[in-house]
């Protein structure tokens, strides 16, 4: 499929000498859900500003929908929708008027615009409050209206600069749902920047990790995470207190392909493996045939933050680590011990 964005060696130096974007190259396929993940000040917003024709690049080459960002800005503006980091609405206009104005500026009008606005209001669940001024909306409602205003003219390509920053988990989940739907059902290309690993992980098919204006890693979220190396699988055994059994289990596990290492600790065994999801079934089968009873299995995948950590030596947002770690666990019911 054709690339809707092509960027080669993009550099953006601000007037004060700050190199916000430092030789970035990437391309985005049409229909892709594409993301930039990085901490504040990494160069995400600057890249979006160049691609949305708001900022002149210092050097490099960038095309959007086949149009050059410098010489064909006007063409680009017709096919893109942009939601900036801050929610931007005219607070004196009603929800409906905000959408209508946005459509008018995109040269829409008449019954086509009216129908489109009605549809969007119902898509983002604001039909009931459409005649109220946007200034009276709650934060989540404003964000949804802002998103709708970026969609009025059915853009081919949607730019979202940190679309859920500052939202409560419920509103965030609602936005994620709309975005996934837009990408899937209307095959709209979406370019998203975020500093939330969970968001990038959940939405993006193709992800670039950016730090200090440079791309440090790229791939699909699962590719990136598998680059980290190992998932960890925690196993606890029936009668696991007996050291003998643990040692036996350890021996079996170490003999399995795909296992990097096994550590025995007080609460059971921890297995580091390249792909926990694939190997768990093997472990269960191997234990079963060796008559070792499992009491519980849980595994946690490496997060995108682990990826960032590996490439930059820093975490994206240390204060969020505890809540953002994605852990999957399964609990087995205690099986009846079988006679040996």
């Amino acid at each position, binding site marked *: 499929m054709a690339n809707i964005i092509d960027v080669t060696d993009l550099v953006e130096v601000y007037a004060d000498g700050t190199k916000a974007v430092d030789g970035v190259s990437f391309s985005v396929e049409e229909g892709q859900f594409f993301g930039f993940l990085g901490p504040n000040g990494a160069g995400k917003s600057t890249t979006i500003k160049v691609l*949305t*024709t*708001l900022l*002149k690049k210092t050097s490099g080459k960038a095309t959007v929908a086949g149009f050059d960002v410098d010489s064909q800005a*006007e063409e680009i*503006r*017709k096919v*893109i929708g*942009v939601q*900036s980091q*801050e929610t*931007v*609405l*005219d607070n*004196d*206009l009603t929800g409906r*008027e905000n959408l209508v*104005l*946005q459509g*008018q*500026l*995109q*040269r829409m009008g008449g019954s086509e615009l009216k129908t489109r606005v009605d549809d969007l209001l119902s898509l983002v669940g604001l039909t009931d409050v459409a005649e109220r*001024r946007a200034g009276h909306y709650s934060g989540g409602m404003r964000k949804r209206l802002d998103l709708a*205003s970026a969609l009025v003219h059915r853009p081919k390509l949607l730019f979202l600069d940190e679309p859920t920053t500052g939202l409560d988990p419920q509103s965030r989940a609602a936005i994620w749902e709309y975005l996934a739907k837009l990408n899937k059902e209307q095959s709209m290309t979406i370019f998203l920047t975020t500093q939330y690993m969970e968001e990038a992980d959940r939405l993006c098919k193709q992800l670039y990790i950016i730090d200090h204006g440079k791309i440090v890693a790229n791939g699909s979220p699962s590719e990136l995470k598998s680059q980290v190396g190992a998932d960890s699988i925690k196993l606890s055994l029936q009668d696991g207190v007996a050291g003998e059994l643990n040692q036996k289990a350890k021996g079996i596990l170490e003999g399995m392909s795909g296992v990097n290492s096994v550590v025995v600790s007080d609460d059971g065994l921890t297995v580091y493996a390249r792909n926990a999801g694939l190997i768990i079934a093997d472990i269960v089968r191997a234990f079963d045939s060796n008559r070792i009873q499992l009491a519980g299995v849980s595994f946690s995948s490496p997060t995108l933050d682990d990826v960032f950590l590996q490439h930059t030596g820093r975490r994206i947002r240390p204060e969020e680590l505890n809540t953002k770690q994605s852990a999957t666990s399964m609990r087995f019911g205690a099986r009846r011990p079988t006679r040996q």
Partner: protein
Amino acid sequence: MTFINDTQHLFVRALKKLVRNPILLFFSLFQPIIFLVLFTQLFTKFSQVPGLFPPGITYLEYATPGILLQNGFSSALQSGTSVVDDINSGFLQKMLVTPVNRSAILLGRLSSDAFRVIVQSLIILVLAYILGFSAATGLAGILVMLIVIAFFGLAWSGISLALGLRTRSAETVFGIAGFLTFPLLFMSTALVPVTAMPSWMQSVSNVNPISYAVNAVRDLAIPHSFSLTAIASAFGYIGVIAVLTLGATLYLFRKVVS
């Protein structure tokens, strides 16, 4: 065509915002109305002093044109705060990622300012009429007055917009506007004739653009004084200011936009 449509949509937006913030309208009308009611009462006898004011007219007739211009002047100076709002809220940026014509963003703003000044002027004219004012040149004269006032307002909107674009601070625009309003108003022929001023003030008044605009409007308002020269020189003077201030506005706006 797209240019006209874009301007129209943004003109409507600006008017909606104005109507929905009646407090702003109230504040910009409050001062001229106070002037109209208080000054015309206060200075009625003063205006009878022989040799100072044109003979045979009341102070109300003399001052109404000045108050109309003061109103145009001070509400136009608010214009810059709106562009500051749009820059700071990100709304300007939101418009700039659409194909909207860049000049239409400015023209939509300016045309709504001009419209607002005309409406406010009509309100003041109606009040003045109730107090006893009438325009010697009739409805046609009032029409020309409104045109002079609207263009005068546009020129000052340019100053305010340029200030807003340069400083990006609504407080600064308000501050400078407030600072300019009174000296420029009192050192003009808006409220007293030039003959009643000390000589240094006369020389300020003689180059003060407000004097030219006021004289043109006054010539249309009071009997037997209609003068094409006054109107022509008012337009000439306003034109020069408009070219300068709107030029600066356009230059600064281009810098913001690119």
